């Protein structure tokens, strides 16, 4: 491998990481856009999603690393797992919103945010106590297919990860821009009061937002497992924190911002590790965040939030 190939490989790694961060960041940014709440439970909805998809894959008879599927069985299994985990996590998100956040919706201050931290800890400890703390082997049904791009390796699972992420983000974009409910979401994000006066069911909109955001987190959980072949109860924190950073970097509340922010953070992480040292990763990421926010407080794509009186 020449040095340029190594850099190319790091870009491939970084984009893969970034795609995962983007999927997660979308959930943060959508909820914030609608109700101005930072939802810390999102971290661990993602983690629960990876455990749930592991369970689904095990039910289809996949255990460990030795079963490789091809063709229709592979696509079918992955699609089944994807649909199941997105539904499950979507409903989990809705349940969290309906039971603990809706009663707090109009309570001023940080009560709702603190509540999401509490929910996050509950999910974290439920998984820890029922599943144990060691890293779990995640079934990997994908055959090892490697393409050579110059001297760098591009694997099937990376292509798949990018593909699923692009598809989901495209779908979300279409939903928000083109459908009635999506337009209702935009309207609610701009001005909840006015939207309500125009006859928009704000509760339905908020619920849809939680469903979509959490479903994307569930998809990210499955992708995480397939990409790294393991899962553990701690994965929510590092990935979640980076994704949150990505959302802020892109401009919290902005959907394209979350997508771009995620990929940027992924690239900063991989290239920073290559050019400096891995142990400095967090310092690099958060320094860039601080610099961006100082120069552009709304983030890269953020719009100024008009303070509601």
């Amino acid at each position: 491998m020449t040095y340029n190939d190594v850099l190319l490989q790091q870009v491939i790694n970084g984009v893969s990481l970034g795609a995962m961060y983007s999927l997660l960041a979308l959930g943060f940014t959508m909820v914030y856009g609608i109700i101005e709440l930072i939802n810390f439970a999102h971290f661990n909805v993602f983690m629960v999603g990876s455990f749930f998809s592991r369970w689904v894959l095990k039910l289809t008879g996949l255990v460990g690393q030795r079963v490789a599927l091809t063709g229709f069985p592979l696509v079918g299994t992955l699609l089944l797992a994807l649909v199941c985990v997105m539904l499950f996590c979507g409903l989990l998100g809705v349940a969290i919103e309906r039971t603990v956040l809706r009663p707090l919706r109009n309570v001023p201050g940080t009560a709702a945010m603190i509540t999401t931290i509490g929910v996050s800890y509950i999910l974290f400890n439920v998984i820890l106590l029922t599943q144990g703390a060691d890293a779990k082997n995640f079934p990997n049904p994908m055959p090892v297919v490697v393409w050579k791009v110059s001297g760098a390796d591009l694997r099937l699972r990376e292509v798949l990860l990018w593909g699923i992420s692009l598809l989901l983000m495209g779908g979300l974009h279409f939903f928000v821009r083109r459908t009635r409910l999506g337009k209702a979401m935009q309207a609610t994000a701009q001005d909840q009061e006015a939207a309500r006066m125009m006859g928009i069911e704000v509760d339905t909109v908020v619920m849809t937002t939680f469903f979509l955001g959490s479903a994307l987190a569930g998809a990210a959980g499955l992708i995480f497992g397939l990409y790294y072949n393991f899962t553990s109860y701690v994965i929510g924190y590092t990935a979640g924190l980076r994704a949150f950073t990505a959302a802020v970097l892109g401009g919290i509340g902005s959907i394209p911002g979350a997508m771009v922010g995620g990929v940027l953070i992924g690239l900063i992480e991989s290239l920073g590790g290559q050019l400096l040292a891995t142990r400095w990763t967090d310092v690099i990421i958060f320094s860039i965040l601080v610099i961006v926010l100082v120069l552009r407080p709304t983030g890269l794509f953020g719009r100024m939030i008009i303070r509601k009186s």
Partner: protein
Amino acid sequence: MTKIHRRQLMMTTVGALALATLAGSAGFAPVQADEKLVTIGIELPLTGADADSATRIKNGAIMAIEDANTAGGAGGYKIAVTVLDSGTSTAGQYDPAQAATNAKKFVADPNVIAIVGPEMSGEGKAMTPILSAANLAAVTPSSTNPDITDPKFAALYKPNGKAIYFRTVTTDAYQGPNMANYMRDTLKVKSVYILDDSGAYGVGIADHYEAQAKKIGMNVMGHDQLDPKEADYTTIITKIKGLNPDAIYYGGVAQAGVKVAKQIYDIFPTVIKCGGDGMVDGGILSGVGFPAIEGWYVTQASPHVMDDAAMSDWVARYTKNYNMTPSDYAITAYDAVSVIVDSIKRVSASGQPVNRDTVRDAIQGTKIDTLQGPVSFDENGDMLNKVISVFEIHHDAGSAEDDVQHQYKYIGVAPESPTS
């Protein structure tokens, strides 16, 4: 956890019953129970990423205590046991803060006269100042960081002056360097990249390894630290692949180790992979899985006696009792209890009172033959016998995937001095 409590309760009850019967049948005035019952504390990370190796160690210690009680106790004393866990959910593995809390609990219990444990050096560093103040001796079956017993750091780890940290394994001052010798001489490694997991043990063994590797002329291409909670090490492993060293040496325990092994297999499978005793763990075998974990070279800081004919009964008994195979550190844990039991016997025979001070002094003067061979300590608490065993992970399809006895193949001793 319930298992431990039940066992603990049971052992205490057995001890007390035995005393009651003794006192009753002999018709003497009943002796006070606390005069004839001593407690050995066990301190290990029984939950979290280290649970597998810790449980195997715990079983070795429990088995030794049960054997001693069956054989009539130690110098007239029955032995009770208190087990404390240092794993916490926030750490996800051993937690030094919890280890310190556990040390305080042991100190507060006047019946505890010695401790078996801890498993991890990070725990040991947190516990020793507290144990030293109470002159309560710990015999560790597995923690290998040399600093803890190094006279240079006496002010930190034995402020009271006397050695209270004894080991039935040797230290990373041998484990790291001897492996460097083995890698250069036997595995023909000329260049290496070093990773550690930022923990007390991982940093220590990696630094000792690095110093020796440089001394014997290996090309150390870099040394980077990993955050054990991080999921993604592809960046650093890609960087290493770009440098193309002959080998990677990883100093650290399971939490980062599982991910390191998985991702090296994906990105750079052809490199020679080596690690210390932190990579000996059933949870690593099942977490990484075969074939990804195949071919790792790892060391243990004790002689490998498990396959000896003389040990076959012991191994069979352990496997039957605990429904898992023993690790080498289950044997050193058994030996740690033997050291304590022998010390109590000697104190008792000399007519002195059996307490923390006398037991510590007796442990210092240990000279016994244990399962692993003769055990005695230098004035710092380190074992005089220093053997580093090397293993290669090689899949044995006939055994369970997490069977540490059969998936790690013993391949020899790592030499203390290089051959050339």
